[in-house]
């Protein structure tokens, strides 16, 4: 699979996760979101940016449970819960938000 952004071709694996993490840009994120039928808004960007920061710091995409706990701690319980997160990313924050954030699939996610 691949994405087209600003005339550039960005390679991705068969599930749509980009191959080279350095290829990521906000424009690419919008493009990946489109293929997931997701409209990027402030709330979704908040989660995507959080994931990117988490990866930057720990070199892993967190498991969903860990992500929700970490969001709860930094943004409060009204955002750090399953319902909120699955409303933003119906097919799972791990599957969709990580993909949009340009991260590998979370370890242990099948």
């Amino acid at each position, binding site marked *: 699979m691949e994405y087209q952004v600003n005339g550039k071709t960005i390679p991705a694996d068969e599930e749509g996760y980009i191959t080279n993490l350095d290829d990521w840009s906000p424009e690419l994120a919008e493009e990946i979101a489109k293929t997931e039928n997701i409209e990027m808004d402030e709330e979704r960007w908040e989660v995507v940016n959080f994931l990117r920061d988490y990866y930057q710091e*720990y070199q*892993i995409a*967190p498991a969903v449970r860990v992500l929700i706990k970490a969001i709860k701690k930094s943004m409060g319980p009204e955002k750090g819960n399953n319902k909120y997160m699955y409303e933003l990313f119906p097919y799972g924050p791990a599957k969709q938000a990580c993909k949009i954030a340009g991260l590998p699939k979370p370890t*242990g996610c099948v």
Partner: protein
Amino acid sequence: MSDVKKFLYVNRKAPYGTIYALESLEVVLIGAAFDQDVSLAFLDDGVFQLTRDQNTDGIGVKNFSPTFRALGDYDVTRLYVEKESLDERGLTADDLQEIMYEDEDDDWAEKPAIRIVSRAEMTDIMAEQDVILSF
């Protein structure tokens, strides 16, 4: 709940020469989903996994040492490091990176996850486990 078992992951290999160290860490992260009582042991060359200032830019492999600092988020809060193994390799506790976790039972106080133990203590820790996974 009585079906919580004590799991110990024993790490005895240096980080980048073989895949053992990274594989161990990945299994720990995956296994953490099962709500067991998990701790990690570092002895022999395994203590090299925790040294600070690792930079793998020049060898083209991922530096996974920052990931140890995420273990607290996965409720893995005990990293036992054997003192004799450090001594044999000319290392001290100061050569290891700082790994903190937040203690849920103590108002989320930040505490160090690394515990330096003697060889005799490490032997006792191993003897307390239900399951030992070696890497």
